[in-house]
């Protein structure tokens, strides 16, 4: 790694560069920051606040269970607490914390200056926060969700759950939207914004992991979002997805939930493991042993986690062969997890380990996670699971995996990176005490649950009979829970205390090896004045070698550009210099857009048309203002000139972030419509008759929609090929851009009208049968996809009309063509599900 700063920009240039990256001050600092460190810190702090609230709920439940037949909590309150505890820990703590950590660390580790879509990153944070607030508003209005964090139908359906369930669903939907958005950010920053020279084989394990995790989030969280929507429709407009009387099936919810729920476990564990893959080598003073094996293990674990969902449904009466497919997958994944464990042990064995606080938490992780992994192999076996299902054995198992696999690594990571975040060292003495309290408390809490579960204590029940003989075990668990809580509180005190009293740390107090340790502690707003060049897997441990091509890019970005925020965009495989990606500055609009979405949720909950109407105005206004600000800034100053005279500020295709964003949005839409189609296929094979009445059968309308979409793609694509790759296109090319954008917009509008017209023309009744409900859902999904395509095309139109950078409309039209292609796939899947699938009769 080289960061040669002997010759460089003048003091004035450095000052202008610092000004371009200046953080907002005063009140603006609360609502406007978009820089990845601000957003990452907010994610992590908010997540930990939710963590302590969720922990308090757990303590209340442990008090209730300390003795048999207690009535400290009523059954209803107990149901509410275990629902909110699970929901909080899974949706509001674990995943958002890790996304926050990734938002903070990834640009620093990869040598970038910010996340690719900084404003969208902020928007995601606000969605998450407002989703959490909506969920917790249930306590204020006295309607707390009580159907469990899994919300099984029919318990969560219209028959048995009140408005509390709607609050849960809306809060969750916002948090899920945030997670999916964060996943797109992570994929782009890892694949295309690495420092020059950081080829895939030199990429930090944390980056490999977050790349895989982001893919998992897109493939697994979208089905939950779809499932939540189906449940909300069943609850509020009487669709029939989960109603057996009308061709629905409650088991569909379990499929959709666990298609999300099982990968979610690995979305938490894999980043935890990645933290360990950074902490163990640094604190053992030895490179990670078996880097390619570890990368392969991460990929295998991530992919296989997508195929394990049925092992949560072993007791639902599925056929033996079906169970055996998923048992095979569940057993396979344990081998991949074991590979990582062997790599860490080999690294410890080969190095000179230091018993620092991060290392203590890492060792605690190893011990606990391996124990949880062993019980995981046990419950992966269908016959054993049939015995242990819904007992405290399962509670013990997943807390070993989640706390061992995620919380201990997170605490290791916090102590490891705290000097980087704050510039201060936390107290080693207090940290050690907090580790032992947490470790002993954890095992005292959860180890006895294995026994109480095997002895027959069911989970999710507010009390137990004294004759069951598990009173002492439960008392031990309760005592352990308080010791565990004391350890976590002491951890918080240690870290927060270091903010004021900790020793100053310098940039690299541990002698670590990755790029974040090159930056100041805490890092400056732009992270790196001069972009580092990477020539090895451990840039700070390897002897740097010189590559003129890479050095040229580093020099071009040395405290530059100065009138616009920008960072290098590099090739996917080799991280060779490519173009410059513009990075957005502070703004208020993402907050307003997220607030509009929360307002829409409130309007739906209050059943107020006025609030809903106002929310639509806020959302549309915020997005339009956001886009106008983007175009205004991109038309300014240096953004028309190549950085260093060589690196274009944006270029067509995958050479700029927008293309990746459009491709990501298209993939999300396709996953969503495929989920709906899978749901209908599942219902069809389980129904004696499908559909009950006529199928949609409107081939001309459907074909017309498809043709209009093909026209939208063609026009956008044609427009994106007109004019040179510079900012001074001839008038004919400008006219072509305008004509293409207008044609594409018109074709999209026609497609929207035709798609929506299918519903009234089909004469179906969404309350009659689940097929009819499914058609409504598919038509709505298609309409939403078309609206997104129209939105992006109108942005291209605005880009053409508002500024002089001629390359910008070209790029925007190409992005629109990518998104329209995704919409065409959505149309094809929707058509197959409504018209072709019903023809398959046995």
């Amino acid at each position: 790694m080289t960061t040669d700063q002997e010759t460089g920009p003048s003091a004035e240039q450095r000052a202008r560069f610092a000004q371009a990256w200046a953080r907002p001050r005063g009140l603006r600092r609360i609502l406007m920051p978009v820089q990845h460190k601000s957003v990452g810190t907010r994610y992590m702090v908010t997540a930990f606040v939710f963590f302590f609230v969720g922990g308090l709920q757990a303590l209340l439940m442990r008090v209730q269970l300390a003795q048999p037949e207690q009535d400290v909590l009523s059954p209803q309150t107990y149901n509410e607490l275990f629902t909110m505890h699970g929901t909080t820990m899974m949706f509001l703590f674990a995943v958002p914390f890790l996304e926050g950590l990734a938002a903070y660390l990834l640009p620093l580790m990869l040598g970038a200056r910010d996340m690719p879509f900084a404003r969208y990153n902020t928007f995601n944070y606000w969605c998450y926060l407002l989703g959490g607030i909506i969920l917790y508003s249930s306590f204020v209005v006295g309607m707390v969700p009580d159907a469990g964090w899994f919300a099984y139908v029919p318990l969560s359906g219209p028959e048995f759950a009140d408005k509390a369930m709607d609050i849960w669903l809306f809060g969750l939907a916002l948090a899920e939207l945030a997670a999916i958005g964060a996943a797109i950010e992570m994929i782009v920053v890892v694949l295309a914004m690495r420092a020059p020279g950081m080829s895939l084989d030199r990429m930090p394990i944390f980056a490999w992991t977050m790349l895989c995790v982001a893919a998992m989030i897109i493939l697994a969280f979208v089905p939950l979002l779809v499932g939540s929507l189906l449940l909300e429709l069943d609850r509020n407009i009487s669709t029939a997805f989960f109603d057996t009387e009308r061709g629905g099936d409650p088991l569909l919810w379990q499929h959709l939930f666990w298609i999300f729920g099982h990968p979610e476990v690995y979305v938490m564990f894999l980043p935890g493991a990645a933290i360990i893959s950074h902490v163990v080598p640094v604190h053992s003073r030895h490179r990670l042993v078996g880097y390619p094996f570890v990368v392969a293990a991460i990929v295998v674990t991530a992919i296989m986690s997508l195929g394990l969902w049925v092992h949560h449904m072993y007791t639902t009466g599925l056929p033996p062969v079906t169970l055996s497919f998923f048992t095979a997958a569940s057993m396979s994944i344990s081998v991949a997890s074991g590979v990582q464990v062997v790599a860490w042990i080999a690294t410890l064995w080969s190095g000179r380990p230091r018993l620092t606080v991060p290392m203590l938490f890492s060792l605690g992780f190893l011990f606990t996670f391996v124990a949880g992994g062993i019980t995981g192999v046990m419950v992966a076996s269908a016959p054993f699971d049939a015995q242990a299902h819904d007992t405290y054995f399962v509670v013990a198992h997943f807390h070993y995996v989640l706390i061992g696999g995620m919380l201990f690594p997170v605490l290791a990571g916090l102590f490891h990176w705290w000097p980087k975040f704050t510039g201060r060292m936390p107290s080693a003495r207090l940290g050690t005490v907090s580790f032992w309290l947490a470790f002993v408390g954890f095992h005292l809490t959860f180890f006895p649950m294995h026994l109480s579960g095997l002895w027959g204590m069911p989970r999710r029940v507010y009390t137990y009979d004294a004759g069951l003989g598990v009173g002492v075990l439960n008392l031990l668990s309760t005592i352990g829970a308080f010791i565990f809580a004391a350890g976590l509180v002491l951890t918080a005190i240690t870290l927060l205390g270091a903010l004021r009293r900790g020793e100053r740390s310098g940039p690299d107090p541990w002698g670590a090896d990755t790029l974040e340790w090159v930056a100041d502690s805490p890092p400056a707003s732009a992270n790196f004045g001069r972009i580092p060049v990477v020539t090895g897997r451990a840039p700070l441990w390897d002897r740097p070698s010189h590559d003129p091509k890479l050095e040229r890019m580093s020099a071009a970005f040395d405290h530059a550009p100065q009138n616009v925020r920008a960072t290098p965009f590099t090739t996917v495989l080799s991280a060779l210099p490519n173009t410059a990606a513009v990075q957005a500055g502070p703004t208020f609009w993402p907050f307003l857009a997220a607030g509009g979405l929360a307002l829409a949720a409130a309007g739906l909950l209050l059943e107020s048309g006025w609030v809903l109407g106002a929310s639509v105005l806020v959302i549309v206004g915020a997005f339009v203002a956001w886009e106008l600000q983007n175009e205004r800034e991109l038309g300014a100053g240096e953004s028309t000139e190549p950085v260093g005279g060589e690196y274009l500020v944006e270029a067509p295709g995958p050479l700029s972030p927008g293309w990746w964003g459009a491709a990501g949005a298209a993939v999300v839409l396709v996953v969503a419509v495929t989920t709906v189609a899978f749901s209908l296929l599942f219902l069809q094979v389980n129904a004696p008759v499908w559909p009950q009445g006529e199928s949609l059968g409107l081939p001309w309308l459907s074909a017309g929609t498809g043709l209009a979409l093909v026209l939208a793609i063609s026009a956008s694509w044609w427009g994106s090929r007109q004019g040179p790759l510079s900012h001074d296109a001839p008038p004919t090319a400008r006219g072509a851009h305008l004509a293409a954008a207008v044609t594409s917009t018109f074709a999209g509008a026609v497609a929207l009208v035709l798609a929506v017209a299918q519903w009234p023309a089909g004469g179906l009744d969404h309350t009659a049968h689940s097929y009819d409900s499914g058609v409504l859902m598919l038509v709505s999904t298609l309409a939403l996809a078309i609206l997104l395509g129209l939105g992006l095309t109108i942005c291209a139109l605005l880009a053409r009309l508002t500024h002089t950078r001629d390359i910008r409309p070209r790029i925007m039209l190409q992005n629109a063509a990518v998104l329209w292609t995704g919409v065409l796939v959505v149309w094809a899947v929707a058509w197959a599900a409504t018209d072709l699938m019903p023809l398959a009769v046995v």
Partner: protein
Amino acid sequence: MAAPEATRPRSTRLAVAAVLVPPVAWVCALGLSYVVQDFACTAYASAGRNPPTALIGTAVVTLDVVLLVLTLAAGVVAWRTSRRATAGGGSPLFGFLGRLGLFLSLGFAAGIVMIAVNPLVLEVCA
């Protein structure tokens, strides 16, 4: 001067494909095995008819065998990529991609075998 083999576009595409094919093949093996077996058996049961179990079982195993062959072929390509990168003093990136593809191929091939054997030893539509 010609580019080293490992940096030519065709070699690059092959090296990347060798990394991507095994995971995709495993996902297809699990997904298609589940959909073909479970959905077909359920559809027949819902219609009150006897399912053609031999046909369903054969279809599942055939699908899995095809996907297994694809996965192993990707492994061979990966192994050759790795060997060329090591022997010819080529790019370390391609050596890494080759090794990664090989590990993934072996891991996912084992996973596909574990899925494929089930219809051979269990009753398909029990």
